[in-house]
């Protein structure tokens, strides 16, 4: 269901069409892996390695969905979520992806829209992303 796939494109609204998926993870390998996977699947992806970078990215190009790691240097997931939500304008849904033991707990701490525990299945990640993109 790549971007080049016209059928898939029809399911996405014009608004989300040009909005990237913001991937926030301090682990470079994970961030890169997710990025290349999502690009392959036809999405536009912006990568940030901490909350501060993510804030800048979100400002520059408002994302359709945010995939958020929690434990990060400089500005962690908790701080990012609260700062991001204090900003004006529409807020993209946040999906927490964490290697923490109680991922559900982490997600509820920042009132995230969804969560996926690491290590995740790419199909499940994709399904989760699409659920939030189509909801908008």
């Amino acid at each position: 269901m790549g971007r080049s796939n016209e059928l898939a494109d029809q399911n996405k609204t014009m608004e989300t069409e040009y909005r990237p998926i913001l991937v926030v993870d301090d682990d470079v390998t994970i961030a890169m892996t997710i990025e290349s996977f999502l690009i392959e699947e036809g999405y536009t992806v912006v990568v940030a390695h901490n909350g501060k970078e993510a804030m800048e990215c979100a400002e520059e190009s408002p994302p359709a969905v945010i995939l958020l790691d929690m434990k990060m240097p400089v500005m962690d997931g908790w701080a990012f979520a609260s700062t991001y939500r204090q900003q004006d304008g529409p807020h993209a849904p946040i999906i927490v992806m964490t290697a923490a033991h109680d991922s559900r707990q982490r997600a509820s701490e920042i009132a995230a829209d969804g969560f996926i525990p690491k290590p995740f299945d790419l199909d499940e990640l994709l399904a989760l992303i699409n659920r939030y993109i189509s909801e908008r």
Partner: protein
Amino acid sequence: MDATEVQNKTEAAPGDQVNILMVDDQLAKLLSYEAILADVGANLIKATSAREALEHLLKTEIAIVLMDVSMPEMDGFELAEMIRQHPRYQKTAIIFVSAVHLTELDRLKGYEVGAIDYIPVPVIPEILRAKVSVLADLYRKTRQLEELNHELERRVEERTAALEAAMAGEREARIAAEAATQARDEFLSVAAHELKTPLTGLRATAQIISRKLKKSDVEVPPWLSNGLRVVDEQSVRLARLIGQLLDVTRLDQCKLTLERPATNIAALADHLVTSFTARTTRHRIVLTAEREVLADVDPESIEQVLSNLLDNALKYSPDGGRICVQVGQIDDRHIFFAVRDHGIGIPPERRASIFERFYQAHADDHRSGLGLGLYISQQIVAQHDGEIIAEFPPDGGTRFVVRLPVHATSIARAAGRQP
């Protein structure tokens, strides 16, 4: 040292000396009192004036003051009042020697009963001796009692201090133990996080390669696709083992925080069966469930229980076969779920121990994990006030049944749906 010893010691001490102060402006009278009281066994001190008496009182501990009422300068009543005003002498007994007038006796009423007495003139030696002896004895006994009290107080203080020190030591030890436990938990939590992070990259990479190969026109050799599937499966398995390590330490301290919203166990099972079906080609997983089976549970924990049971079912039926998952209502207040496999089963002699921690019914089998899955499952079920049992059908395999109470929220929700 017991009370008797204390008493003996007090009696033997020189401090046991009782001092009697005799005050009269006539020395002859003092000498006659001295003669009368010689064998009372007290130290007799003479004073010929109120002033001299006061001087003695300041220097010496006086048990009894025997005084003439009528003296020049300061009379007996004035002296008595001065003595009484001093806190040290509040317990000093005073005996007035006086030709009794009614008016004078009235003045005695102002004094504390028992600490004051009078002897009429002429003095009858036996009466004076008797009164002084009684008061001296009373003084001695009172002092002994006080000393005993002090000793007891001191010992109580000692014991209290010792006890407090012991308690403080215990408290410190407990704080240290708690700190150590917390440090261990934090370490395990961080370690689990750090171990899962590379697994995330590993699993995602294996899946990406697998996907790219499928999309390409290249014919993928089975060893490659199988190899990638193994990497994927083993990543999941390793992640689960890491999770179990954390679970078991938390269970040990009953730290597993259980939030219990009304949860549809049927939907939860459906989700898991789908995900497990994707993992196996040899097994056929069949779910039999009512549409909605509600119970107040911690969804993650119960999912973990069901996941552990499915994991075991897959693991211990290596030749494949049917795996039956059932979810249903027992009655208004109880639900159940069961997982049945048709695999190798559990040898009868090992059945009793399967829920024990670190127990591996198939220890010789490379598929065995840490021996924690059933232990953790049972602990979780117990924390939900439920029970888990293993059944061994005659036609082979194993069936695990979990019974759980429904609890208030789910009962209310189910009732709300009734027309």
